[in-house]
Protein backbone atom coordinates (compact mmCIF):
# COMPACT_ATOMS: atom_id res chain seq x y z
CA UNK A 1 0.00 0.00 0.00
CA UNK A 2 2.79 2.41 0.87
CA UNK A 3 5.06 1.15 -1.86
CA UNK A 4 3.65 3.53 -4.41
CA UNK A 5 4.51 6.56 -2.32
CA UNK A 6 7.80 8.43 -2.50
CA UNK A 7 9.93 8.83 0.60
CA UNK A 8 9.02 12.49 0.72
CA UNK A 9 5.31 11.64 0.76
CA UNK A 10 5.79 9.14 3.56
CA UNK A 11 7.90 11.59 5.57
CA UNK A 12 5.22 14.26 5.33
CA UNK A 13 2.46 11.77 6.03
CA UNK A 14 4.08 10.23 9.09
CA UNK A 15 5.26 13.56 10.52
CA UNK A 16 3.17 16.30 8.97
CA UNK A 17 4.32 19.91 9.36
CA UNK A 18 1.98 22.71 10.39
CA UNK A 19 -0.77 20.38 11.53
CA UNK A 20 -3.40 21.86 13.82
CA UNK A 21 -5.55 24.96 14.16
CA UNK A 22 -4.98 28.70 14.54
CA UNK A 23 -7.02 30.57 17.14
CA UNK A 24 -8.68 33.63 15.59
CA UNK A 25 -7.38 33.00 12.09
CA UNK A 26 -7.54 35.71 9.42
CA UNK A 27 -8.89 33.23 6.89
CA UNK A 28 -10.27 29.70 6.82
CA UNK A 29 -10.71 27.38 3.84
CA UNK A 30 -12.80 24.23 4.07
CA UNK A 31 -12.98 21.99 1.05
CA UNK A 32 -14.33 18.52 0.40
CA UNK A 33 -12.91 16.40 -2.38
CA UNK A 34 -15.87 15.37 -4.50
CA UNK A 35 -14.13 12.32 -5.93
CA UNK A 36 -13.42 10.59 -2.63
CA UNK A 37 -15.22 12.40 0.17
CA UNK A 38 -12.01 13.61 1.80
CA UNK A 39 -11.96 16.93 3.63
CA UNK A 40 -9.29 19.56 4.28
CA UNK A 41 -9.34 22.69 6.41
CA UNK A 42 -6.70 25.41 6.17
CA UNK A 43 -6.23 28.31 8.61
CA UNK A 44 -4.08 31.33 7.77
CA UNK A 45 -2.71 34.28 9.66
CA UNK A 46 -1.76 37.24 7.44
CA UNK A 47 0.99 39.75 8.21
CA UNK A 48 2.87 42.50 6.41
CA UNK A 49 6.36 42.24 5.01
CA UNK A 50 7.91 45.01 2.89
CA UNK A 51 4.47 46.53 2.38
CA UNK A 52 3.03 43.28 1.05
CA UNK A 53 0.60 40.91 2.65
CA UNK A 54 2.24 37.61 3.46
CA UNK A 55 1.19 34.34 5.03
CA UNK A 56 2.62 34.61 8.50
CA UNK A 57 1.29 31.31 9.73
CA UNK A 58 -0.67 28.49 8.19
CA UNK A 59 -2.07 25.27 9.68
CA UNK A 60 -4.20 22.44 8.40
CA UNK A 61 -6.45 19.60 9.39
CA UNK A 62 -7.20 16.81 6.94
CA UNK A 63 -9.43 13.80 6.76
CA UNK A 64 -8.05 11.73 3.95
CA UNK A 65 -5.56 9.31 2.57
CA UNK A 66 -1.81 9.37 3.12
CA UNK A 67 -1.37 11.48 -0.01
CA UNK A 68 -3.97 13.99 1.16
CA UNK A 69 -2.20 14.41 4.49
CA UNK A 70 1.24 14.65 2.86
CA UNK A 71 0.07 17.25 0.33
CA UNK A 72 -1.52 19.25 3.17
CA UNK A 73 1.76 19.26 5.02
CA UNK A 74 3.68 20.22 1.88
CA UNK A 75 1.45 23.07 0.76
CA UNK A 76 1.60 24.71 4.16
CA UNK A 77 5.39 24.61 3.99
CA UNK A 78 5.37 26.05 0.48
CA UNK A 79 2.91 28.80 1.45
CA UNK A 80 4.50 29.96 4.68
CA UNK A 81 6.22 33.34 4.24
CA UNK A 82 4.95 33.81 0.70
CA UNK A 83 2.89 36.83 -0.32
CA UNK A 84 -0.81 36.13 -0.82
CA UNK A 85 -0.39 36.61 -4.57
CA UNK A 86 2.45 34.06 -4.64
CA UNK A 87 0.65 31.61 -2.41
CA UNK A 88 -2.47 31.70 -4.57
CA UNK A 89 -0.41 30.58 -7.50
CA UNK A 90 0.84 27.39 -5.89
CA UNK A 91 -0.59 24.61 -8.03
CA UNK A 92 -1.24 20.98 -7.30
CA UNK A 93 1.63 20.19 -9.64
CA UNK A 94 4.00 22.28 -7.51
CA UNK A 95 2.91 20.31 -4.46
CA UNK A 96 3.30 16.98 -6.20
CA UNK A 97 6.72 18.01 -7.46
CA UNK A 98 7.93 19.02 -4.01
CA UNK A 99 6.79 15.60 -2.77
CA UNK A 100 8.89 13.93 -5.48
CA UNK A 101 5.79 12.75 -7.29
CA UNK A 102 2.47 11.09 -6.48
CA UNK A 103 1.04 7.85 -7.87
CA UNK A 104 -1.23 8.73 -10.84
CA UNK A 105 -4.38 7.60 -9.01
CA UNK A 106 -3.48 9.98 -6.18
CA UNK A 107 -2.93 13.12 -8.27
CA UNK A 108 -6.42 14.33 -7.47
CA UNK A 109 -5.49 14.42 -3.78
CA UNK A 110 -3.14 17.32 -4.44
CA UNK A 111 -6.05 19.36 -5.85
CA UNK A 112 -7.55 19.33 -2.40
CA UNK A 113 -4.49 21.08 -0.94
CA UNK A 114 -4.23 23.86 -3.54
CA UNK A 115 -8.01 24.43 -3.59
CA UNK A 116 -8.20 24.72 0.17
CA UNK A 117 -5.33 27.19 0.44
CA UNK A 118 -6.98 29.37 -2.24
CA UNK A 119 -10.26 29.21 -0.31
CA UNK A 120 -8.54 30.38 2.85
CA UNK A 121 -6.99 33.36 1.04
CA UNK A 122 -10.35 34.15 -0.55
CA UNK A 123 -12.00 34.01 2.85
CA UNK A 124 -9.42 36.47 4.20
CA UNK A 125 -10.03 38.87 1.34
CA UNK A 126 -13.80 38.66 1.64
CA UNK A 127 -13.57 39.42 5.33
CA UNK A 128 -11.29 42.36 4.58
CA UNK A 129 -13.72 43.71 2.00
CA UNK A 130 -16.58 43.51 4.46
CA UNK A 131 -14.53 45.20 7.16
CA UNK A 132 -13.55 48.01 4.80
CA UNK A 133 -17.15 48.45 3.75
CA UNK A 134 -18.13 48.70 7.40
CA UNK A 135 -15.61 51.47 7.89
CA UNK A 136 -17.13 53.59 5.13
Amino acid sequence: MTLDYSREVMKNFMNPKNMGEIKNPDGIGKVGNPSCGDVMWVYIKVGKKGGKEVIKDVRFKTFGCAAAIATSSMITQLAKGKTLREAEKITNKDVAKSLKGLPPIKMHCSNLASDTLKKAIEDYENKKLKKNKGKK
Partner: protein
Amino acid sequence: MKEIYLDNASTTKVDEKVLKAMLPYFSEKYGNPSSPHLKGEEARRAVEESREIIAKSISARQKEIIFTGSGTESNSFALKGLFFANYPEKSHIVTTKIEHDCILNACKWLEKQGAKVTYLDVDSEGFVNPKDVEKAITEKTFLVSVIHGNNEIGTIQDLKEIGKICRSKGVLFHTDACQSFTKTSLDVKKQNLDLVTLNAHKIHGPKGVGALYIREGIRITPLLHGGSQEFKLRSSTENVPAIVGFAKAVKISRARDSVKMQKLRDYFIKGLMEIPNIRLNGATGNKRICNNINISFRNIEGEAIGSFLSVKGVFASTGSACSSKSLEPSHVLLALGMSPLEANSSIRLSISKYTTKDEIDYALKEIKNTVERLRKISPLAS
Protein backbone atom coordinates in the same frame (compact mmCIF):
# COMPACT_ATOMS: atom_id res chain seq x y z
CA MET B 1 11.81 -4.17 12.24
CA LYS B 2 9.00 -6.40 13.40
CA GLU B 3 6.76 -7.69 10.63
CA ILE B 4 3.26 -8.59 11.63
CA TYR B 5 1.29 -10.01 8.78
CA LEU B 6 -2.42 -9.44 9.24
CA ASP B 7 -3.50 -9.82 5.65
CA ASN B 8 -4.11 -13.54 5.45
CA ALA B 9 -7.40 -13.07 3.64
CA SER B 10 -5.33 -11.73 0.74
CA THR B 11 -2.89 -14.56 0.77
CA THR B 12 -1.01 -16.75 3.22
CA LYS B 13 2.50 -17.98 3.78
CA VAL B 14 3.16 -21.36 2.21
CA ASP B 15 3.48 -23.95 4.98
CA GLU B 16 6.96 -25.55 5.14
CA LYS B 17 5.35 -28.97 4.81
CA VAL B 18 3.56 -27.86 1.68
CA LEU B 19 6.75 -26.50 0.17
CA LYS B 20 8.57 -29.73 0.97
CA ALA B 21 5.86 -31.79 -0.69
CA MET B 22 6.01 -29.64 -3.81
CA LEU B 23 9.75 -29.46 -4.38
CA PRO B 24 10.34 -32.93 -5.90
CA TYR B 25 7.77 -32.15 -8.58
CA PHE B 26 9.89 -29.38 -10.04
CA SER B 27 13.17 -31.11 -10.73
CA GLU B 28 12.84 -34.84 -10.02
CA LYS B 29 9.29 -35.94 -10.68
CA TYR B 30 8.80 -33.42 -13.46
CA GLY B 31 6.91 -35.66 -15.88
CA ASN B 32 3.84 -34.66 -17.85
CA PRO B 33 0.83 -36.50 -16.39
CA SER B 34 -0.38 -37.23 -19.94
CA SER B 35 2.83 -39.01 -20.98
CA PRO B 36 2.51 -42.77 -21.46
CA HIS B 37 5.71 -43.68 -19.59
CA LEU B 38 6.80 -44.12 -16.00
CA LYS B 39 7.84 -40.50 -15.57
CA GLY B 40 4.42 -39.44 -16.72
CA GLU B 41 2.66 -42.00 -14.59
CA GLU B 42 4.48 -40.80 -11.52
CA ALA B 43 3.12 -37.30 -12.11
CA ARG B 44 -0.35 -38.62 -13.01
CA ARG B 45 -0.49 -40.55 -9.75
CA ALA B 46 0.42 -37.42 -7.79
CA VAL B 47 -2.34 -35.43 -9.49
CA GLU B 48 -4.96 -38.13 -8.91
CA GLU B 49 -4.00 -38.60 -5.27
CA SER B 50 -4.27 -34.86 -4.80
CA ARG B 51 -7.67 -34.85 -6.45
CA GLU B 52 -8.81 -37.59 -4.09
CA ILE B 53 -7.66 -35.66 -1.00
CA ILE B 54 -9.46 -32.49 -2.05
CA ALA B 55 -12.59 -34.37 -3.11
CA LYS B 56 -12.80 -36.20 0.20
CA SER B 57 -12.39 -33.01 2.20
CA ILE B 58 -15.73 -31.73 0.89
CA SER B 59 -17.48 -35.13 0.57
CA ALA B 60 -17.20 -35.14 -3.20
CA ARG B 61 -16.03 -37.86 -5.57
CA GLN B 62 -12.64 -37.76 -7.20
CA LYS B 63 -13.94 -37.20 -10.72
CA GLU B 64 -15.97 -34.23 -9.58
CA ILE B 65 -12.87 -32.09 -8.90
CA ILE B 66 -11.36 -30.08 -11.77
CA PHE B 67 -8.05 -28.34 -11.17
CA THR B 68 -7.80 -24.78 -12.47
CA GLY B 69 -5.30 -21.94 -12.42
CA SER B 70 -6.94 -19.92 -9.61
CA GLY B 71 -10.05 -19.15 -7.64
CA THR B 72 -10.81 -16.50 -10.23
CA GLU B 73 -10.65 -19.06 -13.02
CA SER B 74 -12.89 -21.50 -11.15
CA ASN B 75 -15.48 -18.76 -10.65
CA SER B 76 -15.29 -17.65 -14.27
CA PHE B 77 -15.51 -21.25 -15.44
CA ALA B 78 -18.57 -21.92 -13.33
CA LEU B 79 -20.46 -18.83 -14.47
CA LYS B 80 -19.44 -18.69 -18.12
CA GLY B 81 -19.31 -22.45 -18.62
CA LEU B 82 -22.85 -22.86 -17.33
CA PHE B 83 -24.08 -19.84 -19.25
CA PHE B 84 -22.79 -21.23 -22.53
CA ALA B 85 -24.24 -24.65 -21.73
CA ASN B 86 -27.69 -23.23 -20.95
CA TYR B 87 -28.13 -20.17 -23.15
CA PRO B 88 -30.50 -19.24 -24.78
CA GLU B 89 -33.06 -21.59 -23.20
CA LYS B 90 -32.06 -20.22 -19.81
CA SER B 91 -30.31 -16.94 -19.26
CA HIS B 92 -30.85 -15.78 -15.68
CA ILE B 93 -28.31 -15.83 -12.81
CA VAL B 94 -29.06 -14.97 -9.19
CA THR B 95 -26.12 -13.72 -7.15
CA THR B 96 -25.47 -11.18 -4.39
CA LYS B 97 -24.12 -7.67 -3.96
CA ILE B 98 -21.26 -8.91 -1.78
CA GLU B 99 -19.49 -11.29 -4.14
CA HIS B 100 -15.78 -11.11 -4.86
CA ASP B 101 -14.96 -8.88 -7.83
CA CYS B 102 -14.22 -11.89 -9.98
CA ILE B 103 -17.85 -13.06 -9.74
CA LEU B 104 -19.29 -9.58 -10.17
CA ASN B 105 -17.11 -8.74 -13.15
CA ALA B 106 -17.84 -12.08 -14.81
CA CYS B 107 -21.57 -11.37 -14.31
CA LYS B 108 -21.20 -7.91 -15.81
CA TRP B 109 -19.46 -9.42 -18.81
CA LEU B 110 -22.16 -12.07 -19.16
CA GLU B 111 -24.82 -9.37 -19.12
CA LYS B 112 -23.24 -8.10 -22.35
CA GLN B 113 -23.56 -11.59 -23.81
CA GLY B 114 -27.27 -11.74 -23.11
CA ALA B 115 -27.47 -12.89 -19.49
CA LYS B 116 -29.83 -11.34 -16.96
CA VAL B 117 -28.40 -11.09 -13.48
CA THR B 118 -30.13 -10.40 -10.17
CA TYR B 119 -27.84 -9.03 -7.43
CA LEU B 120 -29.45 -9.75 -4.08
CA ASP B 121 -29.28 -7.38 -1.13
CA VAL B 122 -27.89 -8.49 2.21
CA ASP B 123 -28.76 -7.41 5.75
CA SER B 124 -26.60 -5.18 7.94
CA GLU B 125 -24.37 -8.10 8.95
CA GLY B 126 -24.02 -9.31 5.38
CA PHE B 127 -26.47 -12.21 5.38
CA VAL B 128 -28.46 -13.17 2.32
CA ASN B 129 -32.04 -14.02 3.11
CA PRO B 130 -32.77 -17.47 1.59
CA LYS B 131 -36.35 -16.29 0.96
CA ASP B 132 -34.98 -13.59 -1.33
CA VAL B 133 -33.19 -16.28 -3.31
CA GLU B 134 -36.43 -18.16 -3.67
CA LYS B 135 -38.29 -15.07 -4.83
CA ALA B 136 -35.61 -14.17 -7.37
CA ILE B 137 -35.63 -17.52 -9.16
CA THR B 138 -37.62 -17.51 -12.42
CA GLU B 139 -38.24 -20.03 -15.18
CA LYS B 140 -35.21 -18.60 -16.95
CA THR B 141 -32.84 -19.08 -14.01
CA PHE B 142 -30.08 -21.64 -14.46
CA LEU B 143 -27.78 -20.67 -11.61
CA VAL B 144 -27.64 -19.25 -8.11
CA SER B 145 -24.14 -18.21 -7.01
CA VAL B 146 -23.55 -17.09 -3.42
CA ILE B 147 -20.20 -16.55 -1.73
CA HIS B 148 -19.71 -18.81 1.31
CA GLY B 149 -17.43 -16.82 3.62
CA ASN B 150 -17.10 -13.20 2.59
CA ASN B 151 -13.56 -12.04 1.89
CA GLU B 152 -14.04 -8.56 3.34
CA ILE B 153 -16.37 -8.97 6.29
CA GLY B 154 -16.13 -12.70 7.01
CA THR B 155 -19.88 -13.35 7.12
CA ILE B 156 -20.68 -17.03 6.51
CA GLN B 157 -23.88 -17.75 4.58
CA ASP B 158 -26.34 -20.52 5.30
CA LEU B 159 -25.52 -22.60 2.22
CA LYS B 160 -27.61 -25.54 3.25
CA GLU B 161 -30.82 -23.54 3.29
CA ILE B 162 -30.12 -21.77 0.01
CA GLY B 163 -29.07 -25.09 -1.54
CA LYS B 164 -32.32 -26.69 -0.49
CA ILE B 165 -34.28 -23.97 -2.26
CA CYS B 166 -32.20 -24.34 -5.43
CA ARG B 167 -32.72 -28.11 -5.44
CA SER B 168 -36.45 -27.75 -5.05
CA LYS B 169 -36.57 -25.25 -7.90
CA GLY B 170 -34.29 -27.29 -10.16
CA VAL B 171 -31.66 -24.56 -10.33
CA LEU B 172 -27.90 -25.12 -9.99
CA PHE B 173 -26.18 -23.77 -6.90
CA HIS B 174 -22.58 -22.54 -6.94
CA THR B 175 -20.59 -21.15 -4.04
CA ASP B 176 -17.25 -19.37 -3.91
CA ALA B 177 -15.59 -20.98 -0.89
CA CYS B 178 -12.05 -19.57 -1.27
CA GLN B 179 -12.19 -17.86 2.11
CA SER B 180 -14.08 -20.46 4.08
CA PHE B 181 -12.40 -23.63 2.83
CA THR B 182 -10.87 -25.61 5.73
CA LYS B 183 -12.02 -22.91 8.16
CA THR B 184 -15.64 -23.89 8.51
CA SER B 185 -17.58 -26.93 7.41
CA LEU B 186 -18.01 -27.42 3.70
CA ASP B 187 -19.84 -30.53 2.57
CA VAL B 188 -21.31 -30.70 -0.91
CA LYS B 189 -23.86 -33.33 0.09
CA LYS B 190 -25.10 -31.87 3.36
CA GLN B 191 -25.14 -28.34 1.97
CA ASN B 192 -26.79 -29.22 -1.37
CA LEU B 193 -23.98 -27.80 -3.50
CA ASP B 194 -23.62 -28.31 -7.24
CA LEU B 195 -20.44 -26.33 -7.88
CA VAL B 196 -17.80 -25.07 -5.46
CA THR B 197 -14.81 -22.80 -6.06
CA LEU B 198 -11.67 -23.49 -4.03
CA ASN B 199 -8.11 -22.21 -4.14
CA ALA B 200 -4.82 -23.00 -2.43
CA HIS B 201 -3.16 -19.73 -1.55
CA LYS B 202 -5.62 -18.79 1.19
CA ILE B 203 -4.84 -22.00 3.08
CA HIS B 204 -1.02 -21.95 3.15
CA GLY B 205 -0.76 -23.51 -0.29
CA PRO B 206 0.77 -22.03 -3.46
CA LYS B 207 -0.71 -19.23 -5.55
CA GLY B 208 -1.98 -19.92 -9.05
CA VAL B 209 -3.92 -23.11 -8.42
CA GLY B 210 -7.60 -23.59 -7.76
CA ALA B 211 -10.26 -26.22 -8.13
CA LEU B 212 -13.87 -26.37 -9.16
CA TYR B 213 -16.15 -29.05 -7.78
CA ILE B 214 -18.74 -29.91 -10.44
CA ARG B 215 -21.36 -32.41 -9.37
CA GLU B 216 -21.44 -35.39 -11.69
CA GLY B 217 -23.85 -35.04 -14.60
CA ILE B 218 -23.81 -31.25 -14.84
CA ARG B 219 -23.44 -29.90 -18.37
CA ILE B 220 -20.77 -27.22 -18.59
CA THR B 221 -18.86 -25.75 -21.53
CA PRO B 222 -15.09 -25.58 -21.12
CA LEU B 223 -13.28 -22.26 -21.38
CA LEU B 224 -10.02 -23.79 -22.61
CA HIS B 225 -9.70 -26.21 -25.52
CA GLY B 226 -6.64 -28.27 -26.24
CA GLY B 227 -5.26 -31.57 -24.99
CA SER B 228 -8.45 -32.55 -23.16
CA GLN B 229 -6.95 -32.69 -19.68
CA GLU B 230 -9.14 -32.58 -16.56
CA PHE B 231 -11.89 -34.76 -18.01
CA LYS B 232 -11.89 -32.61 -21.17
CA LEU B 233 -13.00 -29.65 -19.11
CA ARG B 234 -9.77 -27.74 -18.64
CA SER B 235 -7.07 -28.31 -21.22
CA SER B 236 -3.55 -27.36 -20.12
CA THR B 237 -0.69 -29.47 -18.85
CA GLU B 238 -1.41 -29.82 -15.16
CA ASN B 239 0.55 -27.63 -12.75
CA VAL B 240 1.70 -30.71 -10.87
CA PRO B 241 3.79 -29.10 -8.09
CA ALA B 242 1.01 -26.61 -7.30
CA ILE B 243 -1.66 -29.32 -7.32
CA VAL B 244 0.45 -31.45 -4.96
CA GLY B 245 0.96 -28.42 -2.72
CA PHE B 246 -2.75 -27.64 -2.77
CA ALA B 247 -3.61 -31.16 -1.59
CA LYS B 248 -0.92 -31.09 1.08
CA ALA B 249 -2.31 -27.81 2.41
CA VAL B 250 -5.76 -29.40 2.67
CA LYS B 251 -4.38 -32.54 4.27
CA ILE B 252 -2.55 -30.71 7.06
CA SER B 253 -5.38 -28.28 7.84
CA ARG B 254 -6.78 -28.92 11.30
CA ALA B 255 -10.06 -27.97 12.90
CA ARG B 256 -8.15 -27.02 16.04
CA ASP B 257 -6.32 -24.31 14.08
CA SER B 258 -9.69 -22.72 13.32
CA VAL B 259 -10.68 -22.92 16.97
CA LYS B 260 -7.41 -21.27 17.96
CA MET B 261 -7.80 -18.55 15.34
CA GLN B 262 -11.33 -17.79 16.43
CA LYS B 263 -10.20 -17.32 20.03
CA LEU B 264 -7.38 -15.02 18.95
CA ARG B 265 -9.74 -13.16 16.64
CA ASP B 266 -12.15 -12.47 19.48
CA TYR B 267 -9.31 -11.41 21.76
CA PHE B 268 -8.19 -9.02 19.02
CA ILE B 269 -11.71 -7.63 18.55
CA LYS B 270 -12.07 -7.11 22.29
CA GLY B 271 -8.85 -5.11 22.34
CA LEU B 272 -9.89 -3.02 19.37
CA MET B 273 -13.23 -2.22 20.97
CA GLU B 274 -11.38 -0.20 23.61
CA ILE B 275 -10.76 2.41 20.91
CA PRO B 276 -13.58 4.97 20.97
CA ASN B 277 -15.86 5.45 17.97
CA ILE B 278 -15.22 2.25 16.11
CA ARG B 279 -17.41 -0.55 14.95
CA LEU B 280 -17.07 -4.11 13.79
CA ASN B 281 -18.48 -4.77 10.32
CA GLY B 282 -20.01 -8.15 9.57
CA ALA B 283 -21.26 -11.00 11.69
CA THR B 284 -19.99 -12.35 15.02
CA GLY B 285 -19.19 -15.73 16.61
CA ASN B 286 -19.41 -18.87 14.50
CA LYS B 287 -21.08 -17.02 11.66
CA ARG B 288 -17.92 -15.08 10.98
CA ILE B 289 -14.82 -16.68 9.42
CA CYS B 290 -12.39 -17.47 12.22
CA ASN B 291 -9.60 -15.27 10.86
CA ASN B 292 -11.41 -12.13 9.72
CA ILE B 293 -11.85 -8.74 11.37
CA ASN B 294 -13.21 -5.67 9.62
CA ILE B 295 -13.37 -2.42 11.53
CA SER B 296 -14.55 1.12 10.78
CA PHE B 297 -12.82 3.94 12.61
CA ARG B 298 -14.86 7.09 12.59
CA ASN B 299 -13.31 10.27 11.09
CA ILE B 300 -10.14 8.80 9.62
CA GLU B 301 -9.49 7.05 6.39
CA GLY B 302 -8.68 3.36 6.03
CA GLU B 303 -6.02 4.00 3.43
CA ALA B 304 -4.18 6.33 5.80
CA ILE B 305 -4.46 3.85 8.69
CA GLY B 306 -3.12 1.05 6.49
CA SER B 307 -0.23 3.17 5.22
CA PHE B 308 0.71 4.30 8.71
CA LEU B 309 0.57 0.77 10.11
CA SER B 310 2.62 -0.54 7.22
CA VAL B 311 5.50 1.75 8.19
CA LYS B 312 5.23 0.30 11.70
CA GLY B 313 5.48 -3.21 10.28
CA VAL B 314 1.81 -4.11 10.71
CA PHE B 315 0.36 -5.27 7.41
CA ALA B 316 -3.40 -4.88 7.05
CA SER B 317 -5.64 -4.19 4.13
CA THR B 318 -8.27 -1.65 3.23
CA GLY B 319 -11.23 -3.56 1.89
CA SER B 320 -9.91 -6.20 -0.41
CA ALA B 321 -6.36 -6.05 -1.70
CA CYS B 322 -7.51 -6.21 -5.29
CA SER B 323 -9.51 -3.02 -4.94
CA SER B 324 -7.05 -0.99 -2.88
CA LYS B 325 -5.83 0.55 -6.12
CA SER B 326 -9.21 2.11 -6.64
CA LEU B 327 -10.84 4.94 -4.75
CA GLU B 328 -14.30 3.47 -4.85
CA PRO B 329 -15.64 2.54 -1.45
CA SER B 330 -15.98 -1.21 -0.99
CA HIS B 331 -19.13 -2.55 -2.63
CA VAL B 332 -19.45 -5.06 0.20
CA LEU B 333 -19.49 -2.41 2.93
CA LEU B 334 -21.92 -0.27 0.94
CA ALA B 335 -24.19 -3.31 0.63
CA LEU B 336 -24.32 -3.48 4.45
CA GLY B 337 -25.90 -0.02 4.35
CA MET B 338 -22.80 1.95 5.30
CA SER B 339 -22.20 5.42 3.84
CA PRO B 340 -19.26 5.85 1.45
CA LEU B 341 -17.51 7.85 4.20
CA GLU B 342 -17.88 5.01 6.74
CA ALA B 343 -16.86 2.45 4.16
CA ASN B 344 -13.69 4.39 3.39
CA SER B 345 -12.85 4.45 7.09
CA SER B 346 -12.41 0.70 7.32
CA ILE B 347 -9.57 -1.74 7.48
CA ARG B 348 -9.48 -5.52 7.36
CA LEU B 349 -7.26 -7.50 9.70
CA SER B 350 -6.96 -11.20 8.94
CA ILE B 351 -4.95 -13.62 11.04
CA SER B 352 -3.60 -17.11 10.33
CA LYS B 353 -2.67 -20.22 12.25
CA TYR B 354 0.77 -18.65 12.66
CA THR B 355 -0.48 -15.48 14.35
CA THR B 356 0.45 -15.23 18.04
CA LYS B 357 -1.04 -13.35 20.96
CA ASP B 358 2.16 -11.31 21.22
CA GLU B 359 1.77 -10.19 17.65
CA ILE B 360 -1.80 -9.16 18.30
CA ASP B 361 -0.76 -7.20 21.38
CA TYR B 362 1.87 -5.38 19.33
CA ALA B 363 -0.63 -4.70 16.55
CA LEU B 364 -3.19 -3.41 19.04
CA LYS B 365 -0.68 -0.97 20.45
CA GLU B 366 0.24 0.30 17.00
CA ILE B 367 -3.36 0.54 15.85
CA LYS B 368 -4.34 2.54 18.93
CA ASN B 369 -1.42 4.86 18.39
CA THR B 370 -2.17 5.27 14.68
CA VAL B 371 -5.83 6.03 15.24
CA GLU B 372 -4.95 8.62 17.87
CA ARG B 373 -2.41 10.31 15.59
CA LEU B 374 -4.70 10.39 12.58
CA ARG B 375 -7.68 11.60 14.55
CA LYS B 376 -5.58 14.54 15.73
CA ILE B 377 -5.03 15.43 12.08
CA SER B 378 -8.68 14.99 11.09
CA PRO B 379 -10.95 18.05 11.12
CA LEU B 380 -13.97 15.79 11.55
CA ALA B 381 -12.80 14.45 14.90
CA SER B 382 -12.65 17.81 16.65
